[in-house]
């Protein structure tokens, strides 16, 4: 390419480079190597300083340069600086290439000759490469200010209110008939012991009434298309069989309905009707019909609800439908599940009636729960002794390797709630390590120590009802090594509570496909960076908040929801974002339609156009990894600024010395 007029600049970096590399020799070598193309080759003390940059700008004008090469530090350090200088000089910033002769040469090489030779090779490679560069334009994408939030637990609620309060439209999609999530099931919350309903209900109501929030309960996201700023989302609105516009929430239908089913909200410890609202403070506080148990849907008889409904809100023939919405950003806040107790047969859940899960216990102490807040065994008796078993399924390589983070604290909370009601009840905490790391948490632990709870440091391996002596009869036996004392103890109790591991939602994997983000080995959504981008995902414009990212308590969940809201507001405020420049594309003529690339793209940016029998790349989705390019057997796919010919030129140059 003889019309290239290249300016070469070799930096001393004080003595950082010049102390090891003979920079004058390197600069001369470049000129001699390609005397026709290299118009000017200089060395200078500090290229990144203002005078250094001015040198480039001035030379472009004076020598009519159209390509710039700087041999200095790592491009990760100053590529931007020199691209800007190049642009300021009046040529496209991509007609620039950098050679790293500091981090990769002067700082790591002992011998001066070897360093100088290596620097030459890297510089010649850059010269070869820059000859093949092309002008590239920066692009921007407009951001639609509407926001989708998936999941209406405390995470989704918090984020929705913050974004809506800032004046933006929010669609909140919740799978179940009411928002509230797991927090709605809790009794008191550690460490301050606020009543969960008291702090949550006002927030739920605000969501229900907020003019900027469109609440879509009993709904699920089915499909997401598009990219940051411009997502098209299909939401499945499951038929509620009740017209919520007309319904006044009077509850008469529920009273009259003859069909009962176990109430999931109460962990099946109480019944609900076929037409029901899941709990008294539900938002929206209007019922849905569970078609799987309603006799009308099963065999066409009943309709009692319809008969008694004053406003005529019952809609038996309502159908599931798909609603399409357009948003610019998305927050996933789909929460967690508890590991099923049945998956750990050694703890006898189901075989021994008085083995309870942690959630069952939350409902048991809750004054609006199935026992009206009375802690009783399944036979209805007051327990005289209770064992609380930590780390059930957590910190266990057979099940979940991680620590669930909240169970130590809620186990302490349980002890307190028990002691509050039954002062003389013997409460045993079987723990491995007491993890109380939040603000005020250790203090809460200390308080429990004073309340006279028994702490046994040792894990219970199994629960049986096998008595070995009269005092054990009719009890559940906790056999554990008291590791502090070094003795195995058998402790009989009336009730055992399993602090089960928090686990990712089983559908998280499927959601990660729908939203093009990823899940880690345990099924939690993966953040972009664990410390520096904890609520971002690998897909721009899609954020995560709350326990769907990993086990978390409410303070952390709320903090994260706020962070996710801030990220979204940041996008909205900016109005547009810069798109990746070094994206890939496909030469239509060359593409054989083999579809190798389609499979490989981590961002589903490539689609196969069946009509043309060619693959196409959506430039807005492509993040520029180049994987498709590396795999394309026809050479049809190419990546901007990393074209094959550019890399071949670099290879040629690097081996020319």
């Amino acid at each position, binding site marked *: 390419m003889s019309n290239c007029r290249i300016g070469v600049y070799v930096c001393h970096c004080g003595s950082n480079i010049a102390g090891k590399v003979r920079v004058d020799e390197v600069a001369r070598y470049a000129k001699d190597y390609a005397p026709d193309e290299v118009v000017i080759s200089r060395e200078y003390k500090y290229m990144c300083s203002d005078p250094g940059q001015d040198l480039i700008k001035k030379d472009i004008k004076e020598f009519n340069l159209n390509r710039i090469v700087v041999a200095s530090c790592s491009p990760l350090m100053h590529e931007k600086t020199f691209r800007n200088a190049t642009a300021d000089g009046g040529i496209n910033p991509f007609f620039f290439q950098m050679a790293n002769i500091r981090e990769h040469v002067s700082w790591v090489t002992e011998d001066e000759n070897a360093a100088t030779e290596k620097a030459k090779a890297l510089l010649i490679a850059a010269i070869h490469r820059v000859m093949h560069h092309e002008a590239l334009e920066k692009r921007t994408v407009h951001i639609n200010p509407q926001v989708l939030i998936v999941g209406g637990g405390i995470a989704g609620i918090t984020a929705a209110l913050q974004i809506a309060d800032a004046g933006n439209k929010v669609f909140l999609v919740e799978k179940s008939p009411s928002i509230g999530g797991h927090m709605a099931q809790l009794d008191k919350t550690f460490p301050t012991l606020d009543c969960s309903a008291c702090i949550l209900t006002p927030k739920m109501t605000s969501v229900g009434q907020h003019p900027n929030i469109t609440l879509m309960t009993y709904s699920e996201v089915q499909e997401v298309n598009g990219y940051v700023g411009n997502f098209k989302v299909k939401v499945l609105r499951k038929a509620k069989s009740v017209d919520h516009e007309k319904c006044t929430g009077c509850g008469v239908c529920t009273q009259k309905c003859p069909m009962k089913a176990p109430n999931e909200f109460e962990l099946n410890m109480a019944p609900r009707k076929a037409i029901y609202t899941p709990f008294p403070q539900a938002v929206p506080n209007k019922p849905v019909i569970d078609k799987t148990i309603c006799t009308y849907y099963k065999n066409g008889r009943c309709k009692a609800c319809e008969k008694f409904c004053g406003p005529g809100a019952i809609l038996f023939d309502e159908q599931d439908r798909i609603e399409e919405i357009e948003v610019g950003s998305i927050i996933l806040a789909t929460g967690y599940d508890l590991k099923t107790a049945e998956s750990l047969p050694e703890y006898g859940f189901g075989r021994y009636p008085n083995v309870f899960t942690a959630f069952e216990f939350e409902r048991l102490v809750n004054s609006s729960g199935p026992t009206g807040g009375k802690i009783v065994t399944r036979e209805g008796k007051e327990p005289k002794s209770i064992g609380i078993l930590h780390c059930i399924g957590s910190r266990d390589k057979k099940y979940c390797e991680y620590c669930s983070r909240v169970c130590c604290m809620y186990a302490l909370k349980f002890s307190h709630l028990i002691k509050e009601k039954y002062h003389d009840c013997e409460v045993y905490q079987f723990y491995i390590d007491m993890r109380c790391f939040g603000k005020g948490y250790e203090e809460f632990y200390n308080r429990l120590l004073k309340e006279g709870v028994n702490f046994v440091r040792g894990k219970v391996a199994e629960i049986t009802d*096998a008595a070995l002596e009269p005092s054990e009869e009719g009890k559940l036996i906790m056999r554990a090594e008291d590791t502090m004392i070094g003795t195995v103890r058998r402790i009989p109790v009336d009730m055992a509570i399993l602090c089960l591991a928090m686990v990712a939602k089983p559908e998280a994997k499927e959601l990660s496909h729908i939203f093009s983000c990823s899940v880690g080995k345990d099924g939690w959504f993966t953040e972009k960076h664990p410390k520096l981008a904890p609520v971002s995902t690998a897909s721009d414009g899609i954020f995560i908040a709350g326990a769907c990212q990993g086990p978390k308590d409410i303070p952390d969940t709320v903090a994260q929801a706020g962070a996710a809201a801030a990220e979204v507001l940041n996008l909205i405020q900016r109005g547009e974002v810069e798109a990746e420049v070094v994206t890939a594309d496909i030469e239509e003529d060359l593409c054989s339609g083999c579809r190798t690339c389609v499979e490989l793209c981590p961002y589903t940016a490539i689609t196969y156009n069946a009509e043309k029998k060619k693959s196409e790349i959506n430039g807005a989705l492509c993040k520029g990894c180049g994987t498709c390019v590396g795999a394309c057997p026809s050479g049809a796919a190419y990546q901007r600024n990393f074209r094959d010919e550019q890399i071949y030129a670099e290879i040629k140059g690097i081996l020319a010395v």
Partner: protein
Amino acid sequence: MKTYGYYPGCSVRSSSKAYEKSLFLVLKSLGAQLKEIDDWNCCGATAYFGTDKKMATAIAGRNLSLAEQQKMDDIVIPCTGCYLTLRKSQDYLKEHQGEIVHKAMNGAGLKGGEKVALRHPVEIIHKDIGLEAIAKVVKRPLKGLKVASYYGCQLVRPYGDIDDPYHPVILDEIMTACGAEAVEYPYKTRCCGGALTGTVEDVGLRLVYILLAEMQKRGAQVVVTMCPLCHMNLDAFQSKVASRFGAEYKKSFRKEYKPLPILHFTQVMGWAFGYKSKELGLGDIMVEPKSLLAAS
């Protein structure tokens, strides 16, 4: 008639002949038979792993290799001790290809041993043959007989691939298929004492006591085992246990300790299939079981 390879192990040739006898009959009724590995040797047993793991593996490996040379795809092993020893040895052979044990085996003209599938009778009866087939050949359903199935350690642990290591059910299901009532109790896989009854008797006997007491309390009339060593511990040591711990039992549970008949599970199946007491070796059992079986 399906033929399986067969590794008897030393115990069924001495203390547990009745197990082998009844196993053959039961399988015959179910349309299967066993072909013994010619010139098998002792599996090495657990104690062996405590002396020299490589030697133990080599000794067990000889059996696996013979089975393959004799063209057996799978071998049935009635003793769970042998079963586990052979399985662990096979794993070792797979993981240490080309190392010392393989070299020594090759030197003695022994090859392979990694392919043959190792099975326990309970597993083939439950999986390959199935509960329906059992129900079909039952002639004397064991109506009302309360049977405690005892699994012991080594079938379900450490592999855990045949049934749950903590709460297995396959033997209970086999017993139910024979018309009996399965007794639910928490110690189905708790250790029977293993070799401790012989070495550290105090501990061994106490383990036997805990098991028998628990079964008794849950109303078991008969206990079935699936391993000669378990059987030996529960059966032969029972009188000792009764005399040593009878008083403790009475104090704790306010009842006399009543010795339980301990049977090989195949004996109970054989009875349900209509075989005679003599054929099944019922007379070998310390606590006479025949009247109970006959009554059911």
